[in-house]
């Protein structure tokens, strides 16, 4: 069974062209800007992007300037999946009627974790369920960073944000991170994957596969945010790598409902190595860190079991 193109990016076939270009106003060490740049390298010029309100929109589209060399549209916060559905539907009808050339144009929606897991979830679910030929990329920096680091449903347990402060009666965020990739899988779409710019070739490969697959695809990209995670800008790539290597954010693909885990190493590092790099977890007691370790291991076991029960056979 082979349902996806086996495109694979490496150092040798890395495209030279850039479509998300310099001049944008991202913070130092922004993992999201890096991820967007890599994603667009993988997608190429025949791409139309619909972008939600959020960091990426604000840093890249201040009139009269733009960082986008592909057609790009921003409409609102919660409706990106609907807007890109419309782009896809419009192109489809116009191509059929001879008003647009016969060629594959990748229709790509982009949103942060708020625009995906919270306010944008309904529109995303609708678009995935309807089966549009779209790719939706969630650039997850685990809080509302653009408005000043407020918690979202993608903020991890224990993290301090401005609306989940740690105090005498609270350890910070008291809920576990919402598992949006699994919500996407539940829609029965052909391609779901997780990625992180700390593993650039893996990220580019997944973005391209998601774009090439016929039908809806979803790639959830953990995008380290030194500003909001309270770590030094030069540690953004390192902290992303540790999120993966500790199992906090495992890398995997779900192709036609079948799992393929893409972890760099078999053994997981202790979660503490990841937590200790970031100021947002600085206040955590050993007990709470222990709880996080236990839950991360449990979630990882669940994923392994799914991958064992429903493996993707190459």
């Amino acid at each position, binding site marked *: 069974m082979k349902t996806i193109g086996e495109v694979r990016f490496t150092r040798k076939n890395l495209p030279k062209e850039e479509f998300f270009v310099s001049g944008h106003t991202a913070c130092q060490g922004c993992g999201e800007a890096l991820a967007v740049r890599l994603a667009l390298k993988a997608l190429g010029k025949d791409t139309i992007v619909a972008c939600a309100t959020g960091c990426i929109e604000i840093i890249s589209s201040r*009139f009269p300037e733009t960082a986008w060399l592909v057609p790009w*549209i921003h409409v609102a916060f919660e409706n990106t999946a609907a807007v*890109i559905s*419309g*782009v896809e539907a419009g192109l*489809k009808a116009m191509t059929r*009627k001879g008003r647009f050339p016969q060629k594959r144009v990748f229709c790509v929606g982009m949103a942060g974790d708020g625009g995906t897991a919270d306010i944008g979830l309904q529109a995303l679910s609708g678009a995935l369920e309807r089966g549009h030929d779209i790719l939706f990329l969630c650039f997850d920096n685990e809080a509302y960073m653009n408005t000043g680091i407020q918690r979202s449903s993608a903020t991890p347990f224990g993290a301090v944000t401005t609306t989940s402060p740690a105090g005498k009666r609270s350890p910070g965020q008291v809920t576990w991170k919402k598992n949006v990739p699994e919500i996407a899988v539940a829609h029965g779409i052909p391609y779901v994957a997780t990625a992180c710019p700390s593993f650039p070739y893996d990220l580019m490969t997944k973005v391209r596969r998601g774009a090439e697959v016929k039908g809806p695809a979803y790639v959830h990209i953990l995008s380290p945010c030194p500003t909001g995670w309270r770590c030094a800008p030069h540690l953004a790539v390192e902290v992303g790598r540790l999120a993966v290597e500790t199992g906090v954010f495992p890398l995997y693909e779900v192709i036609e409902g079948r799992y393929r885990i893409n972890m760099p190493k078999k053994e997981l590092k202790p979660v503490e190595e990841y937590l200790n790099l970031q100021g947002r977890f600085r206040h955590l007691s050993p007990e709470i860190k222990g709880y996080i370790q236990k839950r991360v291991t449990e979630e990882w076991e669940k994923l392994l079991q799914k991958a064992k029960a429903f493996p993707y056979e190459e």
Partner: protein
Amino acid sequence: MRVALEGSHAVSEAVRQANVDVIAAYPITPQTHIVERLAEMVAEGELDAEFIPVESEHSALSVCIGASAVGARTFTCTSGPGLALMAEIVFIASSMRLPILMVLANRSLSAPLSIWNDHSDAMMVRDSGWIQVFVNSAQEAYDHVFIGFRTAEDKRVLLPFMIHMDGFFLTHAVEPVELVEQSVVDKYLPPPDFPYRLDPASPLTMGAFVMPDQYAEVKKAQDEALKASYGPLLEAWKAWGELTGRHYLPIEGFYLEDAEVVFLTVGSYGEVAHMAVEELRQKGMPVGIAKLRLWRPFPFEDLRKALKGVKYLAVIDRAVCPGGVGGPVALEVRSALYGMEGPKVVDFIVGIAGRDVTPEDYLKMAEMTPEVAGGGSENYVFYGVKE
């Protein structure tokens, strides 16, 4: 060809003949019959369009924005609470200058929940920057699909177009409708060709944000664009009249020359009011009627010209501005007449949530008008409300 059609189906038929590319809608009473028929047409291959059954009205208009941004001709329709959910995007569609067509099957806003017709939904989006007309019949609704697309897509305009169509009274009534030949439509409405499109062949950025040093400039340009759509709309009406014999104007007056009391109506209530005026005239009562069709851009000059010399104006308002000075139509009309030697305005708030207003009611209102008139701007009457 003259056929008997439900108002909703007259709209669907026009959307089919307009060869729309993308339809996105979410079901809500009383709009549903329009989209049900469109879904059938697409399923039967009678209309070559993408029918997107979205999960909310918010997404319905968002889909239309995406499709319109790549150059597709798009249609949506909704009602009352659906429009309220969609509202954020209604304002964005016009600010992004996308020529989308929407039929609003007018319905009252909750609470209490009511599926029946009034204009509270219409008035919520009064300042949304869309071209807006109120139609009086299924025929007018049918005609305005073509007129709307032609005006919206005119390169001098590029604004979305909203057709206000009274829920149930117009959407669910079967009326005789004169359908035009496809050749007439093809002559009147060329295929869409928008100057600004999302296309990888020439990338552009749409929906950039601005700082305070630019925002006011954008809004002024938008106001000017909406006002400037008046000319192209008049041309579109004229061209349609020449092709079909059906002529439309921003405001239509009857018996205005010697009328003592003139009713001003928007939408389908104008039909019963007109009947009442005819009856009262036969009884020798000097009444008249002015039907306001164009709501945005507001036809200030036409209104002033039409109402010159009228003694009393009874505005039939079908929405309330709570805590304000009556109904929204009267508010607008009073502004238009301010400073001119014009009629004394009485505002009747009637027909809220579909309550019937009979010819006898118009007689009573005509009799009341001179008595009530003469007050200040707070001169309004909730007519026929149980105390």
